[in-house]
């Protein structure tokens, strides 16, 4: 009983911010899709025009044509803006679950009531998952509805660098689902890291800085690795590597998508266990 009360209350306290984030992401998704009619067919190849690192970072080194519907969605949305927005939301929620309220003293007051720390940890992490699911599903639905409106569902034929016509399929709801699911997974992984740091330290600054640092640092590491081969083995530490390298929008989900879920589960479990055993920080 305490679980649902704490869970629903935590969601209620975030109604407005969830609404703003969700609408914001959906608007960006639709606005990005709306650019496609004016840009489609402009590319002639597999994205080799930019630097190798940039092309690789955007997944364009894997035969993805940025002039095709899927290539356009990939470079305009799913390789940058969309996952970043979801990851930012995930970090903010992961921090808020424990460390945010602990810093203000609100968590301490809740724990003076007949609820256990375990109940609070589970109810709030479930809240993190719920909000990320809502934001992901709404944006996925918005994009799926937008596909036919902005010709993203139509197959296109372009001329490649060798002068041969290449027909690219239109984007489908399954493509959108795959990419959104992978973005959700990475955002949840970072939320797990933020929850872990908050659960272990009780410090908002550490949780926020640590999780955001892993997100941004992973991005830098992945970018650098595309220029310096010696860094390649380390890129498995980067959430960006899990997200970008398999180009799941085009190629479908790969097993790499499991890694952020594992990170989230481990982050939650360690954060929860330490949280139940340590002293609360005073506000």
């Amino acid at each position, binding site marked *: 009983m305490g679980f649902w009360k704490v869970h629903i209350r935590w969601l209620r306290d975030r109604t407005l911010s969830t609404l703003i984030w969700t609408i914001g992401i959906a608007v960006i998704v639709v606005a990005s899709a709306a650019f496609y009619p004016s840009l489609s067919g402009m590319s002639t190849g597999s994205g080799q025009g930019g630097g190798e690192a940039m092309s690789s970072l955007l997944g364009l080194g894997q035969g993805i044509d940025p002039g095709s519907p899927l290539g356009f969605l990939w470079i305009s949305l799913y390789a940058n803006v969309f996952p970043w927005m979801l990851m930012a939301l995930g970090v903010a929620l992961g921090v808020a679950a424990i460390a945010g309220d602990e810093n203000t*003293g609100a968590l301490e*007051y809740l724990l003076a009531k*007949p609820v*256990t720390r375990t109940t609070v940890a589970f109810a709030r992490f479930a809240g993190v998952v719920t909000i990320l699911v809502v934001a992901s599903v709404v944006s996925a639905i918005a994009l799926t509805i937008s596909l036919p409106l902005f010709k993203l569902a139509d197959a296109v034929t372009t001329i490649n660098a060798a002068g041969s016509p290449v027909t690219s399929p239109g984007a489908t709801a399954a493509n959108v689902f795959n990419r959104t699911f992978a973005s959700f997974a990475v955002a949840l992984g970072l939320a797990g890291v933020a929850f872990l740091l908050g659960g272990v330290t009780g410090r908002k600054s550490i949780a926020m800085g640590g999780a955001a640092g892993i997100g941004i640092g992973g991005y830098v590491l992945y970018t650098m690795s595309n220029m310096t081969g010696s860094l390649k083995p380390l890129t498995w530490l980067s959430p960006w590597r899990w997200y970008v390298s398999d180009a799941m929008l085009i190629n479908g989900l790969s097993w790499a998508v499991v890694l952020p879920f594992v990170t989230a589960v481990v982050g939650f479990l360690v954060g929860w266990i330490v949280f139940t055993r340590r002293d609360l920080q005073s506000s």
Partner: protein
Amino acid sequence: MDNLSLRIPAGECYALLGRNGAGKSTTARMLLDFIRPTKGTIRVLGGRGSDPSVRARIGYLPGDLNLPRSMTGADAIAFFGGLEGGRHPVDTSSLIERFGLEPNRPFRELSTGNRRKVGLVLAFMTNPELLILDEPTSGLDPVLQEEFRDLLAERKAEGATIWLTSHVMAEVERVADRVGLARDGRLARELTMDELRHQATGRMRLTFAEPVDAAQLASVPHVTDAQAEDDDVLVTVDGPVTELLRRAADLGATAIETEHRDLDDIFLEMYQADGSEQ
């Protein structure tokens, strides 16, 4: 807190006094399992502060109440009351009226005093067996402070056990049975309210025709302090004054006046005295 040994029987009101940083709030937080002692044990209402069934019987007011910014007083009453599992015997509307709480304003818009009112309603609304109140009147205006003391006295009369931390002697004087003096993380002194009140009336001003040596009075049994002031000697007594009066008469006292001291003065003196002993 270091080396704290304390037992508070059911129905007693215990006030832990001390300056900021003395360890009062730390002790309250240990009772509720927010922080754990590095050594020793704490039992509250026969159980542990971490046990939800024990917490359900406790009303808590922290020194600095913080709730989610969008939560209104009414939300807080519904949510925290719901977590108590239906223990809602008190009519919260009477508490709201009593403290003049505006229940529909979100927490972020409330002043310090109004946040205190929310905390007091939440602490008292389930009629708990144990009240843990950390600086309860901090931020309240004098009228509400008096209202709070009335309510506390009522709850005590109904049998509630009260743990109070404060540096306001007025609220302690009204309801406390026993006071402890916390200093630098230690329980420096402990005394009953009767002992404290006795100290309040245990000072006398003796006037002599000619100046006398205060040491002649300081050596009298039960005299704890004697200070000369012109032709007067100020004497503090902690027991029968028979011997003191006899010695004063021998020395030619012309007037005897009993001084009533404020408990705040006593608190300050005790604090300074305990500090100088260390």
